[in-house]
């Protein structure tokens, strides 16, 4: 097992998921409740990143963040190094690529929250953001779980974007998915099988833990489906 790659992968997936949730929750909240004319456009734009093949998205990121654009030069100047081929670059790519998997379930989850509960919260003096934190989010637990799980798992398995803007540098941008790809490409099947099984096993455990904690306790249950 490539422990360095595993730790890097877990770090990338955790950081990406955390950033995604922080970005996606307010965005989805806005999308779920706005009456703006821009709503459908923005909602559609948020789903676009997955329409492009990951390597192609990675290519555009590589060019956009690289020395050939003013933006890329500015970032390079500020950071002292280009964003590509660094952990931060991977995070940017993964966040962009997994954005739809966070925004989309959250938006539909938020929109499904019973409005009369929001009305009640409001008359109790709860403002817009307080309602989000104390009513909408807890009631959208299922969608939060969905958003988190899809973002996390997708980042773990992510490969094209990471390969393209990461550059497969051991310790910095060589994630387990790339290591696994390399092993398969290199006909090291026994090792690849071990890596894949190990990856699947830890993800299975993590997911089972999440799912078992995500059960709802809050609806009057008849024994029906």
């Amino acid at each position, binding site marked *: 097992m490539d422990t360095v790659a595993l730790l890097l992968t877990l770090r990338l997936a955790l950081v990406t998921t955390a950033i995604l949730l922080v970005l996606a929750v307010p965005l989805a909240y806005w999308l779920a409740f706005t009456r703006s004319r821009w709503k459908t456009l923005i909602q559609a734009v948020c789903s676009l990143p997955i329409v492009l093949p990951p390597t192609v998205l990675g290519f555009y990121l590589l060019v956009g963040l690289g020395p050939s654009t003013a933006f890329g030069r500015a970032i390079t100047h500020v950071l002292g190094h280009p964003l590509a081929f660094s952990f931060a670059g991977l995070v940017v790519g993964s966040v962009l690529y997994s954005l739809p998997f966070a925004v989309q379930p959250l938006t539909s989850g938020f929109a499904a929250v*019973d409005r009369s509960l929001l*009305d009640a919260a*409001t*008359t*109790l*003096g709860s403002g817009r953001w307080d309602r989000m934190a*104390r009513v909408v989010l807890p009631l959208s637990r299922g969608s939060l779980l969905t958003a988190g799980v899809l973002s996390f798992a997708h980042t773990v398995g992510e490969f094209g974007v990471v390969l393209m803007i990461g550059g497969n540098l051991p310790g910095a941008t060589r994630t387990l998915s790339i290591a696994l790809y390399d092993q398969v490409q290199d006909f090291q099947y026994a090792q690849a099988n071990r890596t894949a099984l190990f990856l699947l096993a830890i993800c299975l455990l993590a997911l089972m833990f999440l799912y078992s904690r995500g059960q709802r*306790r*809050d609806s009057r249950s008849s024994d029906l489906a």
Partner: protein
Amino acid sequence: MPDLPISIAANAPWLSAHIEHHFQRDRAGFTLHLDFTASAQRTVVFGPSGSGKSSLLRAIAGLLQPDVASIQLHGTVVCQNMRGRQQRFFLAPEKRRVGLVMQNPAVFPHLTAARNVAFALHGTEKSAQKEKTIRLLQLVEADTLADRWPRELSGGQLQRVAIARTLAAEPSVLLLDEPFAALDAQSRQTISQNVHAWARERQVPVLTVTHNLEEAFAAGEEVLTMEEGRILAQGTPEQVLFEQREQLLQMLHATPSPGSVDNLRGK
């Protein structure tokens, strides 16, 4: 506000409302058109189903933004949106300090009864929170239910939690939309008395929507009757509800006296 009929009485009106609203959905539609003031400590709104009672309460609380409106609470404008006037104002509902117990109790399903009540106490000190929650649950006879989840409560129990929750926010005005509809006569009487005592202590005026005559007589100093989005009459219960009372009395007298009580199949 020279165009609002403010009565210059001993007790100044706590509510002065001019509301016009048209629900667009139907070709027929429904138009709310109200203009009144309320100054009694206890006011009761009476009216047939669909006459606009809940909509009136929602407009006062700020959950409904009327097409045309001028609403003052305790002399403060909370909504000003009159035809032909440039200046508009709409105070966000969460800032109005209006306590509204909705027809549908809307108890938060993700919080226990006690935590529902404590919802509005967020940010205050823990032990004070706890103590206040218990006191309010006692007031609605629901202190034994503190740790229950909403799905484990009966209809009337939910309604009582909703009442306690609203009082916890220390509103300066209390609007109750058929708050005791799911309660038996006895609880209704006790809890209604408790709530009104709570309000009187704090000088919080109470506006109650009810279909219950007894409640109207017990709770109302002033009664407002509505029909089809308009106010029909405003006055004391005796004035406004005279006819209804006579009907009820007649009906109760018409039923025969009970036979021997041995007939009862007790369990």
